[in-house]
């Protein structure tokens, strides 16, 4: 891994994310980069399903939201420390994904995509109906929850660094998988699942494994993100629009590469931030995203990275 130039690029970017706001103390920069880091986590884990394995997970946000809810429950009701809640939430959601996957991963292509669309709506309805999770009014954090982390201001910085660290881990994980035997099997499944099976790839296991893996870090980040926000509501946690935007980010940057996922997420986040502020466009967020997605699908299916590789083939080995 250390021989790969992109490994060092990831480390450098993670360091920049951590150090620049950390040293300057600039809170608004921190908030902007935090959102960027969250999106990068979502997009790069989604990439494992879409870009590596060829299975479109429209419901990727379910992992993030469930992680948020489980984590919030553990912190507010069980009074567990944040780091533990985050880890356990990640593990639980991963396990749930494994179980869910046993069912829906048997479905091919479009059927699978449809099932995942249903998942978000179903999980949202389920959570909204459970009193333990606060029902439709959600859950919220009291100030005392920030005490173990040294008070609210300190806590926000800790959460930020944790999320940035998880972003780095996510990217490195994607990189490792891409260059492993496991990754090779996933790519084979993406290209032609039946051929892959005949070649000896244990497709059912591989798919289940990657689905569960792709749930872990987003769930952990979900816990941290909603902890930082202090409140979690069903519509926010299971925001189908964000789920879709994750797909747009991935396609924009170029699915199948780690760089593509990260780049697409970051650029889209900046663009989206600009859109939401501008009075004319804020209404049309979904429309703009839709037009962007359509344009990419019709004219540039490889996204930015695909275009870049065609222009400068040498970059293939560097920006993985």
């Amino acid at each position: 891994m250390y021989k790969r130039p992109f490994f060092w690029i990831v480390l450098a970017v993670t360091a920049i994310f951590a150090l620049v706001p950390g040293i300057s103390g600039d809170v608004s920069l921190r908030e902007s980069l935090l959102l960027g880091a969250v999106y990068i986590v979502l997009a790069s884990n989604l990439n494992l399903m879409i870009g590596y394995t060829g299975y479109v997970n429209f419901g990727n946000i379910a992992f993030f939201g469930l992680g948020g809810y489980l984590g919030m429950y553990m912190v507010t009701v069980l009074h567990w420390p944040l780091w533990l809640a985050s880890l356990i939430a990640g593990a639980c959601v991963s396990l749930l994904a494994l179980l869910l996957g046993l069912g829906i991963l048997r479905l091919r292509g479009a059927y699978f995509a449809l099932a995942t669309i249903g998942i978000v709506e179903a999980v949202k309805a389920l959570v909204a109906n459970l009193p333990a999770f606060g029902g439709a009014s959600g859950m919220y954090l009291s100030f005392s929850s920030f005490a173990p982390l040294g008070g609210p201001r300190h806590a926000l910085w800790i959460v930020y660094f944790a999320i940035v660290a998880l972003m780095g881990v996510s990217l490195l994980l994607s990189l490792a998988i891409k260059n492993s035997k496991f990754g090779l099997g996933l790519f084979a499944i993406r290209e032609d699942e039946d051929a892959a099976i005949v070649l000896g790839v244990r497709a059912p296991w591989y798919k289940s494994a990657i689905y569960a893996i792709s749930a872990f870090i987003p769930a952990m980040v979900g816990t941290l993100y909603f902890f930082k926000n202090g409140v979690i509501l069903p519509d926010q946690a299971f925001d189908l629009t964000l789920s879709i935007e994750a797909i747009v980010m991935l396609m924009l940057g170029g699915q199948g590469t780690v760089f593509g996922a990260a780049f697409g997420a970051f650029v889209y986040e900046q663009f989206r931030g600009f859109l939401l502020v501008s009075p004319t466009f804020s209404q049309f967020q979904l429309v703009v995203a839709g037009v962007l997605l359509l344009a990419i699908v019709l004219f540039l299916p490889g996204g930015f990275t695909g275009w870049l590789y065609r222009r400068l083939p040498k970059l293939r080995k560097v920006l993985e």
Partner: protein
Amino acid sequence: MNEILKVSGVGKRFGGVRAVHQVSFHIGEGEIYGLIGPNGAGKTTLFNLINGVIRPDEGRVEFRGQDITGMQPYRVVRLGLSRTHQIVKPLNDMTVLENVTVGACFGASNLSLKAAHSVAYDVLKLVDLNDRSEHLAGELNIAGKKRLEIARAVAAQPGLLLLDETLAGLNPTEVGRMIEVIRRLRDERGIAILMIEHLMQAIMGLSDRVMVLNFGEMLAEGSPEEIANDEVVIEAYLGDPDLTHKILEMST
């Protein structure tokens, strides 16, 4: 000679159609066994029944003495049974090397990525694709794709290779080269081969024994000469007996 494959009374129905019925035969280690018959005779279905893509309704398939009837294809490959497809299935957006590496990684030996790469290079040399190892599989022409298909299956280090019409669509030079490759697979690597072919010169020249399938049932089985002389076979499939003999003479 040891038996590597034993098929006993295998059959499959699709709705009302009997695609394969009561087919029984065996192949020895290092043997080249030809499978011929008119289109729709059930040859590819038989392949699918052997390597687990479809589960037989009746009968047994044994590989090196082990019952593999209805076993998942990814397990069958691990035991040493590979196959190619009639309509080739290249992994298009992956390179030629990556394609063959997949075959090597997930085949009979549980190889690491690095070990698989060297096996892959080796096999690519055998089928003469090593100068195109970095090309995307989707960019190859049909002959290249066919060679890739074989390379992938061979990289799994099989004891038995199922070849489904590997010569279809190739020009005479390519056919000659492919026949050489197939012969070398058996001669140099000891791989047994079960091949479906329509090209008479190839099948008759390469095979140690031949089986004729018609409407899902075995019509005849024997040496190429015996098959060429079999009246029932001639009537059902081969056509002109004199021409068949001439082809047989030319290929030996």
